[in-house]
């Protein structure tokens, strides 16, 4: 059997698991702290992988990666924050809807997305609407974030829960936009370095970025890591310096989240170079499924019937977009 299929599935599993555990850590630490230290640990792991591979850096790939990292850095903070404050089974599929952004970018640049992409957009939007219906607001347990004064109140009334639910959905949509921009820039970097046509599928775009850069598949991601760390530092400086404080005894778990994320990137890059990119892209796009399953298993999250339909619709849409 081609190694691309199990490796693609493994990458999706690792991405989703890293997201889940990043959200768990964000319930104890500020989301910015988790994002920064996990990204730093991931960057170190990536540096080791690059040193072992011994590939030369590609300036164009790094440059597009730097642009992509601005989107992913902002997205990561919003994503972890929404995972910490909201229901993970809702947040993960909504955040995965960033797959729509490359389709919108393709439309704006005069490209006509195919029928699969159009169906994917419709299914994704319908899924998000169903998942985030306001009459079933998330109940807000106290996240007990250490040192984070902006945490929601511990005893939320139904009205404030509804407001908090809308805030979580807004943050998840914001993270989707950031991740979507990340896909667009990674795709542009891949097209510029490999001379290939731009794709519209989000995960396929990420795959192209990691697999199509002439012998330096990971330098695009390395560039993204560098700029996302810079962006996270800037956000910390503008908001509160203490947000980047040392996570203490939680550094191990936070670092493992970043290493898991980087490991998933490596698996995906390798899967994309050894297997069928369309198949691997679809398998990798299943990452929210792992987050949802872990949230149901470990946190015993339960959604209403309509929200479950929304989760399935949103995930179907993401898969269609990845296959487009």
């Amino acid at each position: 059997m081609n190694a691309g299929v199990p490796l693609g599935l493994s990458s999706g599993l690792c991405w989703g698991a890293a997201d889940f555990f990043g959200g768990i850590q964000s319930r104890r630490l500020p989301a910015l702290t988790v994002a920064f230290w996990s990204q730093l640990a991931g960057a170190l792991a990536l540096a080791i992988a690059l040193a072992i591979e011994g590939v030369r850096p590609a300036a164009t790939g790094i440059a597009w990666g730097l642009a992509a990292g601005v989107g992913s850095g902002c997205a990561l903070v919003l994503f972890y924050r929404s995972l910490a404050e909201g229901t993970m089974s809702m947040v993960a599929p909504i955040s995965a809807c960033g797959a729509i952004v490359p389709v919108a970018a393709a439309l704006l640049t005069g490209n006509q997305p195919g029928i699969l992409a159009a169906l994917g957009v419709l299914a994704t939007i319908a899924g998000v609407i169903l998942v985030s219906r306001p009459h079933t607001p998330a109940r807000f347990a106290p996240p007990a974030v250490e040192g984070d004064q902006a945490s929601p109140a511990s005893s939320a009334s139904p009205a404030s829960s509804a407001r908090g639910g809308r805030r979580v959905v807004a943050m998840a949509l914001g993270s989707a936009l950031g991740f979507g921009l990340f896909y667009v820039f990674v795709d542009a970097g891949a097209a510029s370095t490999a001379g290939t046509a731009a794709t519209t599928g989000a995960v396929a775009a990420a795959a192209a970025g990691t697999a199509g850069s002439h012998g330096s598949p990971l330098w695009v991601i390395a560039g993204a890591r560098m700029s996302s760390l810079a962006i996270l530092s800037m956000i910390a400086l503008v908001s509160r310096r203490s947000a980047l404080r040392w996570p203490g005894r939680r550094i191990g778990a936070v670092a493992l989240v970043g290493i898991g994320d980087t490991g998933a990137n490596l698996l995906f890059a390798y899967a994309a170079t050894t297997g069928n990119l369309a198949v691997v892209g679809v398998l990798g796009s299943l990452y929210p499924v792992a987050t949802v399953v872990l949230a149901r298993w470990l946190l015993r999250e339960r959604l209403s019937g309509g929200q479950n339909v929304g989760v399935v619709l949103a995930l179907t849409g993401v898969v269609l977009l990845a296959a487009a």
Partner: protein
Amino acid sequence: MELIWLVLSLLVLDLAALLFAADTRPGLQHSSRPSLTHLPRWSGHHSNKG
């Protein structure tokens, strides 16, 4: 190819460690159901603090 097997093995260990260290105590659980449905009848819906 050796590198990818090394990565795969490390990821399995990574996820196992995360699972082992996961802090999923009841206070951190979230639910989509309205909080009032979880209250005992005698609480009178005035407070959800135990």
